[in-house]
């Protein structure tokens, strides 16, 4: 059912929901951006609609709510292991855009299905509800339409931003009761979505691992500094590294945690004895790009990249991911000939 609602009344609904749900949304952090004089929007706990920033796409995604950057798994002593308590015991209500709601499906694919379901992810994934915020226009670097992530149906609450009020579509009973109490006027609501973006991408149909031999990657060996920011902002990047922290000299008591990792950063592939793969940044770029628009799909049936454009905007070297995608066609021609 759909509703018109004022911001004040939405806040009342949020207040009621906050009894059993932590609420997360994009927040503006002044001077926290890519360069020291720029601002940054990232996810944090919020209590009201006004705290959230919707004028621009957030620089970082919601993913840390489900995958903390650092997560303690357990504490150990010489012969005992004690599981860490969950970071959050309440449910979570996450406000996000369509691309990010599609990203949830990617995180689930990785953490609930690739192999056995992940214990720590499952724990935080329980009781999570999504509020989809409609998009009226696409950002400069967004390419959701080409990635087919511009429309989302799997939301609990859908929301359109209108002059002086909000439109709500609620598919979730617990919240419907609250909206019923707070809204007098009802209406049919379809969540806004964009149908075109300025940035376009085309993934060549004949794309294959043969692209590794294309010369295009050399440029990135020169330009990319391997900082990994493109991975940390990406709502679909999920890698982590295990890390032990010790509480004593002999290393027998401590905690084990997992920490977000980046395939662009040195050390990602290092094996005992000094071996490493993909030493060149260009190879790492190819590895990342191919996962996003090829390898993942081979396994899961849909692309990993949701076209949010965050990686384009965060790169300190101005490397554009969408531009890399668009060079793949030329690269395939180079390695396969023109046929």
């Amino acid at each position, binding site marked *: 059912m759909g509703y018109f609602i004022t911001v004040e009344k939405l806040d009342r609904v949020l207040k009621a929901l906050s009894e059993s749900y932590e609420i997360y949304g994009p927040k503006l952090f002044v001077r926290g951006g890519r360069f020291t004089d720029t601002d940054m929007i990232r996810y944090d706990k919020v209590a009201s609609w006004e705290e959230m920033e919707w004028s621009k796409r957030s620089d970082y995604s919601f993913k840390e709510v489900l995958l903390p950057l650092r997560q303690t798994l*357990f504490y150990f002593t010489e012969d005992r292991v004690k599981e860490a308590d969950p970071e959050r015991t309440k449910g979570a209500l996450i406000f996000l855009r369509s691309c990010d709601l599609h990203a949830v499906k990617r995180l689930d694919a990785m953490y609930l299905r690739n192999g056995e379901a992940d214990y720590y992810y499952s724990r935080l994934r329980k009781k999570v509800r999504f509020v989809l915020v409609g998009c009226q226009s696409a950002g400069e670097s967004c390419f959701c339409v080409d990635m087919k992530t511009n429309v989302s149906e799997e939301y609990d609450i859908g929301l359109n931003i209108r002059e002086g009020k909000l439109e709500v579509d609620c598919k979730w009973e617990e919240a419907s009761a609250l909206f019923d109490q707070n809204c007098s006027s009802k209406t049919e609501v379809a969540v806004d979505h964009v149908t075109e973006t300025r940035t376009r991408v085309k993934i060549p149909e004949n794309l294959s691992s043969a692209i590794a031999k294309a010369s295009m990657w050399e440029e990135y060996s020169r330009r990319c500094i391997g900082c990994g920011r493109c991975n940390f902002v990406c709502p679909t990047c*999920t890698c982590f590294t295990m890390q032990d922290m010790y509480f004593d000299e002999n290393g027998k008591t401590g905690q084990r945690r997992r920490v977000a990792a980046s395939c662009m950063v040195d050390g990602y592939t290092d094996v005992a004895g000094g071996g490493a793969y993909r030493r060149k940044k260009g190879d790492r770029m190819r590895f990342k790009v191919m996962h996003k628009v090829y390898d993942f799909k081979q396994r899961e049936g849909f692309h990993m990249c949701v076209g949010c454009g965050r990686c384009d905007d965060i790169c300190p070297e101005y490397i554009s991911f969408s531009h890399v995608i668009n060079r793949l066609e030329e690269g395939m021609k180079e390695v396969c000939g023109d046929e």
Partner: protein
Amino acid sequence: MNKVTNAYVPFCSEIKEVIRHTDIEYTFRMEYHGQVRPGQFFEVSMPKYGEAPISVSGIGEDTVDLTIRRVGKVTNEVFENYVGDHLFMRGPYGNGFEVEKLGGHELVIIAGGTGVSPVRGVINYFGEHSEKRDALTIITGFKSEKDILFKEDFKRWRDQMNVILTLDSGEETEEHKVGLVTKFIPELEVKDLDTAVAVVVGPPPMMRFSIMGLLDRGFKEENIWVSQERKMCCGLGKCGHCRIGDQYVCLDGPVFRYIQSKDMMD
């Protein structure tokens, strides 16, 4: 959501025996009750370092052998443990070798350095079960005399199969030849190249050149098996480090048919 078990929590395993092979390589015989295959691996917690994937180099009644090389800071600490002490570990992970798929025909196993660990169980199996295979040849390479692993096994293996033990450098003796493993591939005696099976495990360049040698010798791509070593932080298909293309070495490997792995680009 179904009940999800916590696969990250390790179990405590007693060190039953420590076998020293070289200055830097030791086999830890660890208490373990359960199914396990050669070529699978465990994530072993090293005090003061953290977890490292170690492949199973032997399987006993209630034990598994883990051959650990003391390189870098990764694997130093464990050597200060003694018999009766414990290590945390979890696993086994990966597919490992299925001996049923390797048997029935002529078999050649080529392994370099620590690459012998994951195939040691396979060699032992076909050594003891000569009825499960045709002629068996192993070509094992080590850097020098002092780097040879599993010296005791070689005595037994020499009676059971055709053994070529070679060192990168040094003097040739009764026991060993000198030269890279690839040197001995062209002269392999094979009766039926259509069915002969080969297994290759070792450092990446050694694997690459050995496979080239086998293909030149006439082995079929689909009859060559490899085991891949990669950084593996979780063993559970989650951390991403072991991925090559659309394959996860920890879930889909580490054992692959060459025909499948040849298009996997790191």
